[in-house]
């Protein structure tokens, strides 16, 4: 078993419990132990920089300090958490003046952060070459005939510093589970983030375009890797409910993997 510190984040503890459960089960089967980070705090999401810039770097850095204390690489499952934690690390590593201010703030809370933590998304771990080989070997109920489109959203496909480097993690995991891949051109498009709550009239049509493309191309499932994306895609779907004969199912990639691996 390879051990990782696991930062679940608020969403996986509230609306995205299915993501949390399936991710842990699948990770275990593929040889990874996710050790929940004890005493973690909210990453502040994309809301905090608007209220206080220093705090928006220091609050995630406290989590990074906790990770350093246990000396494991960190894995997260939410696009927003990934971005926020990497943003904090980036600012601390690239800008000495912010680093010293973050450290001064952390010091008051009795923590130190050295800037050494590796921060990865669960996709990067589970779609590594060895894990993929293991997945292919262990599939018990191949997702044969299931037409799956994948969706990364902006945070998981965006800037190299903060998002994932361009990749095909989701594609490989889905084909590895035996699913038939449906290519959509909008897989890296932004899901609208909190604009879906604040300006639904503007944001929802953009999200609906993503769903429409997937459906037009005949996808039955849309595999996602971020709770915010799923929330917004579902919201957009609700608006068109009734108009589409066979609704597209929007699932976390780990739920599909769990099915293929026979996790009950």
């Amino acid at each position: 078993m390879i051990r990782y510190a696991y930062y679940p984040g608020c969403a996986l503890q509230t609306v995205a419990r299915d993501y949390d459960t399936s991710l842990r089960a699948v990770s275990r089967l593929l040889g990874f132990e996710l050790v929940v980070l004890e005493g973690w705090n909210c990453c502040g999401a994309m809301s905090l920089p608007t209220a206080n810039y220093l705090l928006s770097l220091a609050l995630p850095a406290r989590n990074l300090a906790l990770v350093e204390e246990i000396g494991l690489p960190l894995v997260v499952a939410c696009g927003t958490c990934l971005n926020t934690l990497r943003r904090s690390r980036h600012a601390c590593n690239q800008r000495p003046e912010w680093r010293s201010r973050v450290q001064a703030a952390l010091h008051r809370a009795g923590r130190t952060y050295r800037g050494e933590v590796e921060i990865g998304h669960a996709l990067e771990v589970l779609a590594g070459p060895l894990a993929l080989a293991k997945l292919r070997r262990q599939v018990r109920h191949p997702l044969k005939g299931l037409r799956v489109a994948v969706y990364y959203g902006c945070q998981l496909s965006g800037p190299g510093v903060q998002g994932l480097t361009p990749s095909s993690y989701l594609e490989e995991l889905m084909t590895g589970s035996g699913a038939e891949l449906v290519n959509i051109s909008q897989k890296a498009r932004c899901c609208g983030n909190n604009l879906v709550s604040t300006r639904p009239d503007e944001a929802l049509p953009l999200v609906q375009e993503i769903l429409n493309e997937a459906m037009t191309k005949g996808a039955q499932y849309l595999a996602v890797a971020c709770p915010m994306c799923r929330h917004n895609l579902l919201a957009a779907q609700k608006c068109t409910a009734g108009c589409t004969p066979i609704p597209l199912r929007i699932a976390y990639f780990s739920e599909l993997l769990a099915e293929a691996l026979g996790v009950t």
Partner: protein
Amino acid sequence: MATAHYFPKTGMAMAEHDFPKLVASLAGGASLAACCQCGACSAVCPVAGPRDTVRQVIQGVRSGLRSWVLKSELPRVCTVCGYCTTVCPQGIEVSEVIYALKRVVLSSRPAGTSLFRDCFTHLAAALLPEAIQEQGLAMVLDREPLALLAFGPMALAMLGDGRTELPGENRKALVEVQRLYQAAMEMEAP
């Protein structure tokens, strides 16, 4: 003609020379001077549409056009997708600049609205069922607003149902977050 496009339609707006400095410092020291007005950021922005573009807003900030910039829709609708930062050939962290503008927009709203509350209401809306949002949020803000910072929307489940005490591990995290908050309030630039 070409240069006319470089400048937002300003009407009688007055330039405020401290404004670019304020924004740059709120954006963690972004170097707005480096912007070459190429428009790459506007081209990838998912919310650009018919409104003011990212490039124009950057130029507006640089020119000190505070009231024009604050009236612009962009800071309000920006989803912080980060595409603009990815493509900027000058290495400007454009989305950090928009964060700074979001902050100026929010704090220029009428007194009495809590910056904090505004920030977290949307997050709570995305993560929690409607029924417990309003009442729970009010209760948490009333009893221990920093629990929102420490535990995000989970704070509503922890404190919003009238339960009195946080479990030990959470209490410890909350105390540390309170100290972080205090430190940040003392150190944060304007």
